[in-house]
């Protein structure tokens, strides 16, 4: 069973508001991923980190989304100005270096009104 922790489980924001969610990866896992799962079960990769360094991110992430994984603190994903289309389940996953399996947290369900 996964030990990835995500908070909060639910987040409700108005359009234009900031939305911030956090993730604690499994202990010892240096690689962290963020995905967006929409209501049609389509997954979109957003960003990944190795320790504190960004490895890959998509264009959408670069504009309104920001993320970080500071040392000795939870990782976070923040949407600067929420839009209705951002309503989705945001999943954090972690992976040990050299391993093939990503382990997922329960997700943060964001609703933008």
């Amino acid at each position, binding site marked *: 069973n996964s030990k990835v922790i995500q908070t909060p489980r639910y987040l409700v924001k108005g359009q234009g508001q900031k939305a911030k969610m956090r993730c604690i990866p499994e202990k010892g896992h240096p690689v962290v*991923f963020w995905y967006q799962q929409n209501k049609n*079960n389509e997954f979109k990769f957003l960003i990944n980190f190795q320790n504190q360094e960004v490895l890959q991110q998509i264009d959408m992430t670069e504009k309104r989304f920001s993320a970080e994984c500071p040392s000795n603190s939870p990782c976070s994903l923040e949407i600067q100005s929420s839009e209705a289309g951002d309503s989705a389940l945001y999943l954090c996953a972690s992976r040990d270096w050299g391993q093939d399996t990503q*382990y997922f*947290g329960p997700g943060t369900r964001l609703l933008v009104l």
Partner: protein
Amino acid sequence: AQSVTQPDARVTVSEGASLQLRCKYSSSVTPYLFWYVQYPRQGLQLLLKYYSGDPVVQGVNGFEAEFSKSNSSFHLRKASVHWSDSAVYFCAVSMGTNAYKVIFGKGTHLHVLP
């Protein structure tokens, strides 16, 4: 580019019946293959995975999957389903370890009739 297709959006079976959920992938090389399950209001749980070796892999809760290189498929099976197996099942691929992302199919919603 890699892709995953799950042709059945919804499958309904009776409790105790056998099950097969289909998955086909598109990739120039054999990827890492996974099946995840998502129960209502929960995250993704790994059922099983495959990269090499015996093409039939065993997973948790009696699930198994069979890899076919010739068919580019990785179908999930269970001999006898239980009502608690009702969930959404996702087939996924990854091209490697470390920083490689996972690419998911759109899922198959399994409904088990009691």
